[in-house]
Structure formats: structure tokens, C-alpha cells
């Protein structure tokens, strides 16, 4: 063991040996003192321009080509050049090995912070949280993206750029509705995906026989009218995963179009856990970097000056403006997450009477890391907040709940504040803000008119009176109709079944040609 009381670095400069030393020191603390369990780490040093590149392909190191990424790049580049936007210090990818990108202009202290934050905090969360385990395949994702990129390029070669672009546009429009929200029987294996697509293509080519094209199809079998229940059951309806439904049942899609829908769907699914665990993920990473760096300072491996530099960045990261502050834009997931993790640490280590009432299971047990690791593994934002937000923290943030009913002329009601009567309601409401079930509109395929004009019927169940924006909805439905190639209708109905609005979209010709 080398002397642990040696300084890791002095000043702001670093080189690759310094990074290695920092990593080793962080790893030692993460493993031995915090008991973290991480994927192997791969740390990549990149320039600002490469960071912008990574931004425009949703942070992934490789991605298929599409104009919308170019648009994001142009937009971000412009705002970066004007200084409207700073760049992140790092990007971390949920893959195995876990890749963290570090910006080259970070100081040595910042690199330490970022390594502790991403390579150990996020990495542990990715590897252990149940949502990520259930929905993502960290071993396969990079290969799958590589496959997706090649496949899309291959399709463009064979079927033309425009046709592929139309399909991708449509798939992207439906991306937020291409997610399975409930775990299925089998877990995702992205490597097998690639082989499957290859086999399918090979089979198609080998089984091609031009004769079949000319066989007369004969009159449609009209006599057997399936009854509605049976039909819905056979189609697997109702179905909220629109992309899945199209991939499996859209009548006139080409096999390559189905494969592209599948690719977009898999990628949407891959990001699904991240949108549900923003607070926890950032909270975990922030808590971990705070613990690791404080410990490094205690061990005398970080100078006081560097530690102060760290504290300043850390404080900026966990800053929570109040609601009437011009900088306010919702809860800062870093601030909320970090505050909750620290609060749990306090409850476990040295609880007050109130905490023992609220959290009998964890209060005073003494094993902080054990409790936290269990929480990190088994919760998402919504359940995490609804179970571990303490009254003390609600008082600390001085939270209050507003209820804005447009029907109420008098104004906005203050429904609950941080007091004895309000704690539980506040906590329930805050948790609900992080519930994906409430964030995304609830839209399902309810039926297909198989006996008639093959119209695809969707329903949006309106919650609390929030209806879809008209212009966007029309455009999305147009894309949907293009894929379905027959009419598509969408009904907005509230919980009692009253229809509030109806949309119909007809397919455009191009889709049929494509």
C-alpha cells in the first residue's frame, strides 16, 4: 500500500498519471468504505467540441444518423458559442464498461469531483437499481447502437434516404409512447437482437420466391366476423406501447420499417429508467462524490485550497432557488436528491423522536451505507420520495402545495404547507410529480376496425382536465397514420367516459410508396 497521506495533486493542473492516482484513491474509498459495486470504469478525456457532438446524439458515443440530431447540434453550438449555455463537466453512459467523458478543461479538483460523481456514484446506481436491471442491458447497449447505426445506414442504401427518414421521423414522434411500462417475461438481450435481425434478413433472402407475388389472393373472407372481445384479445389490446403495436400489427409496413420501429423502441426503453430516477440518480452521485472527496481531504490527500474549490462547485450544484426567485425552474434534482440522502444518513445515525415515528424501520439502525444501498437498489423517484421524504426536510425546503383549478375564479389555493396537517399530503403530491404515470399522457390503442375500413382507434384518458395540444397532436397522428397506412382516430375522454375531442388522420400517399 502506498502512503495514503500523500497529496494526489497540487494546484489545478493534471496529467494522465494524476487521473490514474485520483481514480485509484476514489476507488479505494468507494469500495472499502462505501461498499459500492460498480461496472468496470472507462474514463475518456474529450474536448468541448466532442462534448457538443456527444450532446447532439443524446449523450451516446455512437448513434444512427438523423437530421434532428443535426438540428440539436446547431442549436446547442450556437447557444454555447454565445455563452448562453455552459457545458456539462461530464457525461456518463450506462454501459459495461461504464464510460465517463471528462472535459479537458476541468481542473484537477473538478476531475476528482467528476470521477467520484460519475465513475462511482452513477455507475453504482446503474448497476444496482432495479429499474436499470430490469429495462437496460448495459453489456449489450454499445453493440446494439453500433448495430442500429449500421442497420439504418444499410436501409438508407437499399431503400433510399428519404423513405428511411420518413420512418424515423414517425418513430421519433411516437418515441415517448414506445415504452413497455410493465416488465415482461423475458429480460432484454440486445446482443440477441442483432443476430435476430440478421437471421430474419437472411431467411427473407433465401425464401424469396417471385412466384408468390403473382398468386391471386382471392376475395376477402368476410363471413367470419370476429366478435370484439376476441379480436381485442388477439391483437393484445388495449396496448399503450404504440410503437410495439405498429411493429407487430401494422398491415403494410416493410420488414425493414418494422426493424427501425423496433430500434427506436429499444432505445426509448433504454432511457426509460433514467427519466424515472433523476432525483435518485443525481442524489446518489452527489452524495457519493461528497463522501469520497470529504474523505480524501480527511486523509490529507487533498489540500485545503482544492477542497474549498470543490465545496464551491458542490454548493453551486446543489443550489435550490426558491419559487419566487427568477432562477427557479422546478426542483433541482441534485439538491433534492442530495438533501434526502444526507437526511437519511442523519436518520439512520442519529434520529430524533419525530424520525423514529416516521421511519421506524431505519431510524437509529446505524448502518448508513447498508440502508442507502438498499434504497438505491429498490426505489425510483416516486416511491423514494413518498417513503423517505422527512418532515424535517419539508420544513427545511419550506415546501407548500398549490392547487390551481382553472374553474375556480377566486385564485390558486394553497392546499398544504410544511406543518403537521400538511406533511403527508405534501409528500404525496411531490411524489406524484415524479410519477411517470402522470408525466406522460395516457394514450392507448383500443381497437382496430378489422371488419370495416381498418381504422386504428386510440384513446387518450384525460387526467385532471389536461388535454393534448392540438397542433402537435395532429402532426403526431399524421405520422401514425402514415405508418398504419389507414385512417387513425384519437378520442380524448375523461374518466367518466365523456368524449371531449376527437381527431382523425388520413395516411399520406408517400407512406404507401415507401
Amino acid at each position, binding site marked *: 500500500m502506498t502512503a495514503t497521506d500523500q497529496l494526489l495533486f497540487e494546484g489545478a493542473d493534471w496529467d494522465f498519471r494524476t487521473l490514474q492516482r485520483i481514480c485509484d484513491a476514489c476507488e479505494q474509498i468507494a469500495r472499502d468504505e462505501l461498499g459500492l459495486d460498480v461496472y468496470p470504469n*472507462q*474514463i475518456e478525456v474529450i474536448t468541448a467540441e466532442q462534448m457538443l457532438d456527444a450532446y447532439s446524439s443524446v449523450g451516446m458515443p455512437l448513434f444512427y444518423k438523423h437530421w434532428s440530431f443535426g438540428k440539436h447540434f446547431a442549436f446547442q453550438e450556437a447557444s454555447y*458559442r454565445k455563452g448562453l449555455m455552459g457545458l456539462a463537466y461530464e457525461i456518463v453512459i450506462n454501459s459495461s464498461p461504464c464510460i465517463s467523458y471528462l472535459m479537458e478543461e476541468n481542473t484537477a479538483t473538478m476531475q476528482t469531483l467528476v470521477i467520484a460523481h460519475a465513475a462511482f456514484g452513477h455507475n453504482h446506481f446503474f448497476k444496482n437499481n432495479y429499474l436499470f436491471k430490469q429495462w437496460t442491458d448495459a453489456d449489450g447497449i454499445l453493440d446494439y447502437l453500433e448495430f442500429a447505426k449500421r442497420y439504418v445506414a444499410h436501409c438508407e442504401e437499399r431503400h433510399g434516404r428519404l423513405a428511411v427518414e420518413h420512418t424515423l421521423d414517425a418513430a421519433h414522434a411516437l418515441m*415517448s409512447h414506445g415504452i413497455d411500462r410493465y416488465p415482461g417475461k423475458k429480460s432484454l438481450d440486445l446482443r440477441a437482437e442483432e443476430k435476430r435481425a440478421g437471421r430474419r434478413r437472411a431467411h427473407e433472402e433465401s425464401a424469396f420466391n417471385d412466384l408468390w407475388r403473382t398468386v391471386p389472393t382471392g376475395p376477402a373472407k368476410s363471413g367470419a366476423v370476429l366478435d370484439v372481445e376476441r379480436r381485442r384479445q388477439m391483437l393484445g389490446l388495449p396496448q399503450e406501447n404504440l410503437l410495439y403495436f405498429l411493429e407487430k400489427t401494422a398491415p403494410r409496413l416493410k420488414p425493414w420499417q418494422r426493424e427501425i420501429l423496433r430500434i427506436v423502441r429499444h432505445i426509448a426503453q433504454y432511457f426509460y429508467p433514467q427519466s424515472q430516477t433523476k432525483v435518485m440518480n443525481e442524489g446518489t452521485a452527489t452524495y457519493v462524490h461528497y463522501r469520497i472527496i470529504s474523505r480524501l481531504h480527511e486523509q490529507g490527500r487533498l489540500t485545503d485550497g482544492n477542497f474549498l474549490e470543490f465545496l464551491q462547485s458542490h454548493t453551486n450544484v446543489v443550489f435550490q432557488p426558491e*419559487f419566487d426567485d427568477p432562477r427557479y425552474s422546478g426542483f433541482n434534482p441534485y439538491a433534492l436528491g442530495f438533501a434526502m440522502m444526507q437526511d437519511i444518513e442523519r436518520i439512520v445515525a442519529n434520529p430524533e423522536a419525530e424520525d423514529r415515528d416516521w421511519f421506524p424501520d431505519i431510524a437509529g439502525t446505524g448502518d448508513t451505507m447498508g440502508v442507502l444501498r438498499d434504497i438505491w437498489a429498490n426505489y425510483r423517484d416516486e416511491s423514494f420520495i413518498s417513503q423517505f421524504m422527512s418532515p424535517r426536510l419539508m420544513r427545511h425546503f419550506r415546501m407548500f402545495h398549490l392547487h390551481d383549478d382553472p374553474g375556480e375564479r377566486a385564485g390558486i389555493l394553497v392546499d398544504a404547507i410544511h406543518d403537521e396537517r400538511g406533511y403527508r399530503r405534501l409528500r404525496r403530491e411531490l411524489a406524484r410529480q415524479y410519477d411517470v404515470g402522470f408525466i406522460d399522457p395516457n394514450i392507448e390503442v383500443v381497437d382496430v376496425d378489422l371488419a370495416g375500413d381498418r381504422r386504428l382507434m386510440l384513446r387518450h384518458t384525460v387526467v*385532471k382536465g389536461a388535454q393534448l395540444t392540438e397542433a402537435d397532436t395532429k402532426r403526431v397522428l399524421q405520422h401514425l397514420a402514415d405508418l398504419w397506412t389507414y385512417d387513425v382516430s384519437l378520442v380524448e375522454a375523461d374518466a367518466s367516459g365523456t368524449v371531449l375531442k376527437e381527431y382523425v388522420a388520413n395516411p399520406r400517399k408517400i407512406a404507401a410508396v415507401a
Partner: protein
Amino acid sequence: MAIHIVDRRLNPGSKSLENRQRFLRRAKALVQGAVKKSSQSRDIKDVLEGGEVSVPIDGMDEPRFRREGGTRDMVLPGNKKFVEGDILPRPNQSGGKGRGAGEGDSEDTFRFVLSRDEFVDLFLDDLELPDLAKRKLAEVESEGIRRAGYTTSGSPANISVSRTVSRALARRVALRRPRREVLEALEAELLDCSEERRAELMADIEALKTKMRRIPFIDPIDIRYRRFETVPKPVAQAVMFCLMDVSGSMTEHMKDLAKRFYMLLYVFLKRRYRHVEIVFIRHTDRAEEVDEQTFFYGPASGGTLVSSALQAMHDIVRSRFRPADWNIYAAQASDGDNSYADGEVASRLLTDNILPVTQFFAYLEVGQENGLSYEMPNSALWTLYEGLRANGAPLSMRKVNERSEIFPVFHDLFQRRGQQERTGS
């Protein structure tokens, strides 16, 4: 150690370049509009510098299902004085505080920077050279050579070593030419062996050697030569004649307008032809070929005889630019003055000698700054050319007073006239 540190900084950048190009293609109409608009206010020198344009974002957005309205509940931090049950007055606009920035529709336009090439491409994209007939005609005029496979005969300089050796190898393998190692092994064995074995070995070695002689290492039939093919290459050269009246009546402003026009024409031609030459002819009552500096800034005085310039151009074409080989473009700038007696000569020169050999002849009448040309009677030259055009001469003519009109006029003159004129270039 499990940690792997990689330095990616030297990796090739601009991974997003292709996505960017796709985006530009998609947004072409919008970007083009923006480019036109921004180029109007620019100087000619900067016009080709690229730069920032702003593009309205609608049409480029990606639709998603979104919701709005309805009952909203929110939990906010930083309560100061509210207690449960308070009713707060609504701000005038609903929302206001407590809403995160919307996903895309918060920006109605967005600005981004185009590179120089992107800018020029977009700026000149929907312009087309008029009358490309000659270009097609001239296609057979020159020939280039191109690699085209292999051949069994040719000059020794063109032997393809790799192809020859690989064929020789295939032949040696197919005919089972003894390998050198086998022979060497036998010869090594020969050095110390019994007498009866020696005779046997000698025979074997001899047999192998004969076989090796019979099957040579490289046979003439193995030899392949690189084959070249001649392909016709289109003539891609153009000459641009700049004719300008430099008599006393032409002010600096007018010359400046003309210069801008010539520069645009040059950039435009340069994009289409590999080789572009410029001939400057200035005239008063005499015409002379001059260099650029003199053309724009050299002092001159005298009367005005347009025919002198036309004659000079005609002479130069005859002596230096064979119309079969050159695409000839001419642009004439003048304030419109010409002596009346000259009209007859000028029109004959134009219709008989010049217009038949040029691809394009543009006449730009430059006016005074803030000049109200539309209230003035048509100038002598304008009347003359208009008469010619009425008789079917392919002349393009425009009047320009202001700097900002140069781009629209230029654009106007070269606008694509129907797709059938385009050749697949």
C-alpha cells in the same frame, strides 16, 4: 487495475457533420430564405464569408404528444408566509412561475452559424447557367485516361506486379511446382547418408530440378498489365468578359455597382467551371483591354462609343478564345449613354458577331444613388438593346441603382428556367 483511461481528444472531431448536413438539406428552403435576407445587407466581400443566419423553427420541430391546461398541482420550495387555505390571486397569464422551460416550442427562431461553403452553396443553389448547349457539344473535345482492369499485353511500365505474382503463385500451386524447402531438405540429407540412399536422392533431386525448370517461377502467361481507358472529359473552361463604360459620366457609385455584379458573376462561374478567365475591356470612345486595377480605378475621359468595346471583344474572342473550346460570358455595365450614330454599328456587331458565340450576354444599366430611374426616359443604350431583344436577341438586361439591388438582380438573371435546361452535372 480495472480503470481504463483513454485520451479521446485527438479523435477526429465533427462527428455530427453528417447530421448537420442532413439538417441543412431538410431546412433548405428556410435556410435559403434566411441566406438571401442576410446577404442583402452585406458587402460583396463578406457575402461569401458565411456567418450566422436565423431560421424560424416551425416546420423543423419534432412533434410529440403534449398536454396543457387542466387542474394543476405543484409543490414548490421557499414558502414565506402562506398558510393552508390561502387563496392566491392568479397572475395575469396563467402559469408564470413554476414551469420548466418547454421542450421545443419556447423558441420561435433559432440562429446558427453557416460555414463559407455552406453559405455559398445555398446562396447560389437555385441559380443556373443559361444555355449550356456548348458545354455538351464540347464534351468530346478532350480526353482523359482512367484505370480499367487488367490486360495481357502492354508496356513493361504498366506491369501489375501484385496481379502477376498472384497468378504465378496460383499456377505454381496448381501444377505442383516443387518447393525450394523440399529441395533443400533433400540436399541437406545428401550430405550425410548411405551410398544406396545417395543414388536415390540424386535421382529425386534431379527430377525435382527438371520439374522446377519446366514450371518456371514466373511464366509469360502470368504477366498482367494495368489497362487504361480513355474517357471523354467535358471542357470546363469559361471566359468572362467585363465591359464597362468609363467615360466621365460614370460615377464611383456606378462603378462600384458594376464591380459587385462582376464579382458575383465570377464567383458563380468559378463554381461551375474549373478554369475561369476574366477579360476586362473598358471603353470611352476607344476601347482597350486593361487589368483589373485600371479597369475599376484608372482615370479615363472621352466620349462614349459602345461599338468600340464590342469590336474589341470580338477581336479578342477571335484571337484567343475559340468559341468551340470556351464558354463565353459577357456582362456589360454602363450608365446608358451612347452616341446616337453608334447604335447601328453596335447592334450589327452584337447580333452578327457577339451574341452567336456567347452563352450569355447581360447588360446592367447602373444609375445614380437614389436615382429615380423609372421616371427618367430610357437611355440610348437601353432603347437600343430593348429593340434588339424585341427582335429575339438573347439579351438579359436590368437596371440597378442601389447596392442592395445587385443580389436580387443577379439572382433574377440566373434563376433556373425550368428543369429541362439542366444537364446532369
